[in-house]
């Protein structure tokens, strides 16, 4: 029997004896306003009730629930190469109480990579599971909530065609940044996708054997290039509304681009909320925003810089050229 899941959200999806299982957490009225999905969950799990009492269901139960309660519509997808301002975009969207922003939500990633852990899982199943997970996370829990936005993990751009099939016609953006600055950030604190193991080497245009002995920084530089390449190819092949956005555009132009792309229609009440989000450090909102472009460029090792130039520069320049052609030089 499926339990009463009003106010509960799928916190994690894990594999148990070869089957995906859904862990539900009671979120009550708590909104997803933290920079990342997991931070909201961790905050909630500080209450002993949420930690001790968690429902567990099959994936089928999640899918069945989605048929009955589809949740709010998905209105935008935010893709990015990592360390390029995407958290600020998520925080801007989350600053408006009518939005539910799922920022790098674990269940979304688990479903997108389900075929890697569960042989035989088809694209059709992944799409069904993805819609069901997002639908459950995007249930209206406050009367003013109207729309869901997904800020995806960096590697999810490699699954753009599948995400577009799951959410047809939904506008999307791809954010990127100077590859040397991104490399500098990862050298300081490496993201999960910069380590071999997370991504299917085929996605990166590599044979499994090619990974052996490949230095970590080279692997990372090639991952970033593959992510940007997928963003550019997706943009060129777009059939709906999409935008490319460079990190340097964010502070002066970000709000305008988001407003146009996602049809935000900000009200007078929204202006201070958005201004407030723009002025804070997105990943640590208690701190003010600081442009760290110069600091990052200074900090990167000469080897890291050379790899970023070799693998990242050509695709970064191609993205910029494409963006400037479409934006008319903005």
């Amino acid at each position: 029997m499926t339990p009463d899941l009003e106010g509960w959200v799928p916190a994690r999806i894990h594999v148990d004896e070869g089957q995906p299982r859904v862990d539900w957490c009671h979120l009550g009225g708590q909104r997803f306003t933290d920079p990342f999905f997991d931070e909201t969950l961790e905050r909630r799990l500080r209450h002993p009730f949420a930690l001790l009492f968690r429902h567990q269901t099959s994936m089928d139960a999640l899918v069945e629930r989605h048929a009955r309660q589809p949740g709010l519509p998905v209105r935008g997808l935010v893709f990015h190469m990592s360390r390029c301002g995407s958290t600020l975009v998520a925080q801007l969207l989350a600053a408006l109480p009518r939005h539910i922003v799922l920022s790098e939500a674990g269940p979304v990633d688990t479903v997108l990579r389900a075929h890697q852990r569960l042989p035989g899982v088809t694209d059709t199943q992944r799409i069904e599971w993805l819609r069901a997970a997002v639908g459950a996370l995007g249930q209206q829990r406050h009367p003013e909530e109207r729309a869901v936005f997904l800020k995806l993990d960096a590697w999810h751009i490699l699954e753009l065609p599948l995400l577009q099939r799951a959410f047809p016609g939904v506008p999307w953006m791809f954010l990127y940044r100077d590859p040397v600055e991104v490399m500098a950030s990862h050298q300081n604190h490496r993201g999960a996708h910069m380590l071999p193991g997370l991504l299917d080497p085929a996605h990166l245009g590599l044979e499994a054997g090619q990974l052996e002995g490949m230095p970590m920084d080279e692997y990372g530089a090639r991952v970033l290039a593959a992510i940007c390449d997928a963003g550019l190819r997706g943009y060129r092949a777009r059939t709906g509304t999409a935008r490319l956005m460079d990190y340097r555009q964010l502070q002066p132009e970000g709000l305008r681009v988001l407003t146009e792309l996602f049809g935000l229609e900000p009200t007078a009440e929204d202006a201070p909320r958005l201004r407030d989000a723009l002025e804070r450090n997105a990943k640590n909102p208690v701190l003010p925003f600081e442009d760290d472009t110069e600091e990052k460029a200074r900090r990167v090792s000469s080897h890291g810089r050379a790899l970023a130039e070799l693998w990242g520069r050509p695709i970064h320049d191609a993205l910029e050229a494409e963006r400037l052609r479409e934006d008319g030089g903005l």
Partner: protein
Amino acid sequence: MGAEAFERFRLRVLEDVTLQDALRETPDTAAFIARAIELGAAHGCHFTAEDLHEALRAARRVWRERWI
């Protein structure tokens, strides 16, 4: 014994929205533990504060392990 009693209570709570509401309204861990012991006893499930602390530690551990 206490751990088993708490597990029975836990399953009972997951089926009973009224019990869930009563436990969720507690403002902090101390108040939660007192309420849980009281409600558990009222439903024939007798466990101690230490049983609950152990259950919390185990839940935290499982949560972290599944993250990997």
